[in-house]
Structures are given as C-alpha cells and as structure tokens.
C-alpha cells in the first residue's frame, strides 16, 4: 500500500483511511489541516498535516519528523490529542497515532468525539478570497469550476445550505439553482454594494425576517468592481454552539456551587426572575461615580434598620455591597442597584445590574478561589469579600447584562 499523490483529496483512494485500521468510521480531512505536534519524549515540536480522523486514531503526514513516540497534537489551546505514533504506510511519511486521551476544555476523554472535531474544523476562518479573486471571466464554465472548488472544502459540506452569487452593478446573479429568500437577497445587495465600490472584502451575519435562520455572508471584491458572494446558512451551527455554551454554563454552576459550598449560585433567566419577584423594593439607585458610594451606604443603613442586624453584621454586608458597586464603577460603565427586603424582614437582597461587560464567567473560578492583595487586587479581592460577608451570592448573566445579587439573612452570624 502506498499513499496516493493527491492524498487525501482523491476520492477513489482509501489507503490513508485503511492505514488507520478502524473500519469504516474513519474520515478524510479535506483540505488537510496543518497542526502542531510535540514529541513528549524529546519536547521536539513540528507542524504536520492532519489527513484523517476517527474516534480512536488519526493519520498525520509528517515528511520532516518521524512520529514514533508519544506525542501531543494541538488543535487548539483547549483541544489536544495525546497518543502514540507509529508508521502508517511503509515508505511514506504517513503516521498513525492511536489516541490515548483527548483533552477538550475541562474534560479528558479516551475517544475523539467527531462532532467536537467538526466544530473545531468549522471554527477555522473561511477565506474564499483566494478562490474568488482568480475569477475574472464570468462564463458558466468558470462558475461551475468555482462552485466545484468551494464544494471541495469540507467546511462547506458541513453547513446546511450554500448559495453562491455574483454581484455586478446592483444586480445579483445566482450561480446555481438555489436562491436565498428575497428579504435576505435585498439585505445582501445593500451590504455588498459599497464593498464592491471600495474593493474591500466583507463578512457579515444576516438573519431572516422571521428571525429563525442565520446566514454568514462572505463577499470578495473582484478587480472589475464586481463581487463574488458565498452565503452560508449557519443556523444549525449556532444552535450547536448555544448548546455547548449551555453545557459550559452548567459545569461552571456545579463547580462554583461545590467550591463555595453553595454560597455562589448561578441562575438562569427564569430563576432570576422568580427570585426578584419576591420582596419589596426599599432602595433604587444609579451608580456612576465613586462619590455615589457614600450615599449608597447611607441609604442602605437607613433602609435596613427594621431588620435589626447587629452593627458588625450590617457593616460587613455594606462592605460586600460596596465592593460589588465599586467593581461595577471600576470595570464597567456604572449601573444600578436595588435593595429588596422580605416582608417579614428575615432577609434582604441587593441586586446589582451592570451596564458594562460585567463579570466574565471564565473569571469566576479564579476570582472565587484566589484571595487577597498578594494574588490580585481588583475583582479577586472584591469577590472574596462578597463571598465572606454575604449569606448567598446569586449571579445571573444574559445578553441583557449581568445581575449580581447579594443576600443577607437576618439571623446570620458574622464570619
């Protein structure tokens, strides 16, 4: 068996797949992707071509470095494959790596999940300009060739629908039998027209009028002030990404719950709504300047008097609220704070709504686990204080911003 000259692009040749010895589950990576490998014994690194994948083994083309060792393949910072390399095809620099572990974000798997792999593959930037810039003659023969070239890319085969167009002086011509809906075409024309005049390439996201379909628009200007356009439906990809984010969010919620002994709780929109519906509003303030903090503390002291908190406990709660408010002023563009109390004064909640970027989910484990000025002096300290001085912290984050809720029980003791 030898490696064919077009490997892995030749659909008639299966040699690279057969060398994986995993049956029919192996797939070619078209076009092959350049990935960095590290030989774990020597620490030597090298760029090689990833040619084939399966759940248990991958095929690598490595003309410069033999891969007979334990090695790590880096697809991304948080996506690595570790395994043992061995000769794939005698006489060719094609190596097969049996997968031992797949490190994907916080997970360690013993198999490569092909869905994850395809997500990674699709996340790579698609640049059509090299193909489209060569397109100078607009005859049908050329159109067919362009389409064939585009469809060779496996990334495009993953998406549901691709529409190809040519734009010339206000006219949009479809290069196939498929056309997007008229509202999308209208929007496309509006966006592409200035790009064709200025000669700048364009990448935009379009949403259908009913909001149910999402498209990526890639327009590459051609030298004669016309444009080649690829419109790719990415609805399913976005849904998948949302699911992944949801899983990630749940993982953070569980992790933070364990680490903080259920003191820090992440809430979804519905839970947040239910929580905020309870209690009556005592104070509502906008916070923009550091000078607003003194007034905030004064208002809180006055409004919480009926709760009869011991002086020390009240001070601690004010310190926690003040830290959250300071963070908001320091890191964001300000925001608002509302104080609620239970009807029987058994507890109170301060709701901080950040207008800025707010708290980044990825920062939370570090912010909650590290403490003190010796490690960091902004969010870390503030968050540590909030955790120490509140009975519970709730965090709700959505596209509308971040809401942080600091809860204090009337019966709680000072830490």
């Amino acid at each position, binding site marked *: 068996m030898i490696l064919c000259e077009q490997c892995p692009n030749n659909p008639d040749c299966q040699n690279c797949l057969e060398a994986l010895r995993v049956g029919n589950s192996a797939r070619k990576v078209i076009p092959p992707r350049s990935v960095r490998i590290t030989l774990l014994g020597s620490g030597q690194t090298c760029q090689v071509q990833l040619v084939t994948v399966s759940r248990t083994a991958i095929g690598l083309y490595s003309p410069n470095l033999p891969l007979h060792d334990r090695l790590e393949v880096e697809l991304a910072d948080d996506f690595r494959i570790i395994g043992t390399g061995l000769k794939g095809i005698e006489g060719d620099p094609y190596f097969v790596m049996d997968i031992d572990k797949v490190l994907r974000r916080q997970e360690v798997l013993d198999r490569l999940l092909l869905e994850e792999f395809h997500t990674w593959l699709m996340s790579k930037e698609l640049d059509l300009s090299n193909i489209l810039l060569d397109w100078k003659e607009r005859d049908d023969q050329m159109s067919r060739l362009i389409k064939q070239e585009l469809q060779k890319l496996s990334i495009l085969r993953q998406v549901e629908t691709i529409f190809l167009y040519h734009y010339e002086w206000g006219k949009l011509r479809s290069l196939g039998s498929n056309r997007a809906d008229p509202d999308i075409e209208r929007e496309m024309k509006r966006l592409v027209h200035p790009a064709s005049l200025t000669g700048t390439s364009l990448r935009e996201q379009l949403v259908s009028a009913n909001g149910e379909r999402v498209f990526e628009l890639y327009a590459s200007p051609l030298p004669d002030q016309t444009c080649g356009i690829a419109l790719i439906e990415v609805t399913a990809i976005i849904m998948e990404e949302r699911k992944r984010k949801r899983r990630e969010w749940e993982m953070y919620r569980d992790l933070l719950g364990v680490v903080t002994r259920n003191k820090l709780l992440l809430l979804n929109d519905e839970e947040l709504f239910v929580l905020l519906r309870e209690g009556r509003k005592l104070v509502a303030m906008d916070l923009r300047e550091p000078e607003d903090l003194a007034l905030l503390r004064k208002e809180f002291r006055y409004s919480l008097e009926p709760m009869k908190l011991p002086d020390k406990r009240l001070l601690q709660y004010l310190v926690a609220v003040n830290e959250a408010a300071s963070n908001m002023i320091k890191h964001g563009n300000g925001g608002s704070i509302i104080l609620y109390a239970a009807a029987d004064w058994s507890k109170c909640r301060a709701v901080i709504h950040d207008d800025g970027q707010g708290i980044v989910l990825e920062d939370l484990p570090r912010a909650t686990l590290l403490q003190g000025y010796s490690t960091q002096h902004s969010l870390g300290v503030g968050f*540590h204080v909030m955790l120490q001085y509140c009975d519970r912290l709730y965090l709700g984050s959505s596209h509308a911003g971040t809401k942080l809720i600091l809860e204090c029980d009337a019966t709680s003791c000072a830490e």
Partner: protein
Amino acid sequence: MDYRATETNGQATLFFTGELDMAVGDQVGQLLQQYGERNQAVRVDFQNVSFVDSSGIGSLFFTTKELLALGKEVEIVNVREEILDILHVLGFTQALGISIGKAE
C-alpha cells in the same frame, strides 16, 4: 474622609477620620507616600476610620509595600475590631506583614 498629620524626628503620624472608599483611595495613598518620603517611619492611625473597602485601601496597600521596600517603617495603629476584621478578609495584613494595632 479627613486627616491630620504630625511629624517629629523622622516619625510621622497620619490620623484618618471617616470612610476610606474608592472616592478617596488615591488621596490616602498619596498622603502616605508624601509623609513616607520625608520620614523614616510612618504610623497610620485608624482610630476614627469607620469604613474601609478594597479600593479605599488599595493605594495605601501598594504605597506601604513601596515604602517597606525602601527600608521605611510603616505601622497601622488603633484599628477598630470591625475594621480589623475587614482588613483581614481583604488579605491586607497578611500580605504586608506589618504591625497592625487594635484600638484600645
């Protein structure tokens, strides 16, 4: 926040009064730096400090660190129990390793 200061034979004492929060943090740090530069030792009196937060004492913290690195002496005295508790939670005392005296 208000303050007053005394200086005698290379020993300065800064008396702060009121709330040390984000609005006055920089000022507090600058005062310590100013008195620390022209004295060998600075005592910061917290007797009348009724509130501190991380932003309010952030600058004080970093200035103290710089002065200690220059071989100066810094101590914080007469700290109320509830304020001392906050300083502990902020990690202020442990990270600096300086003497902090409780109010009597």
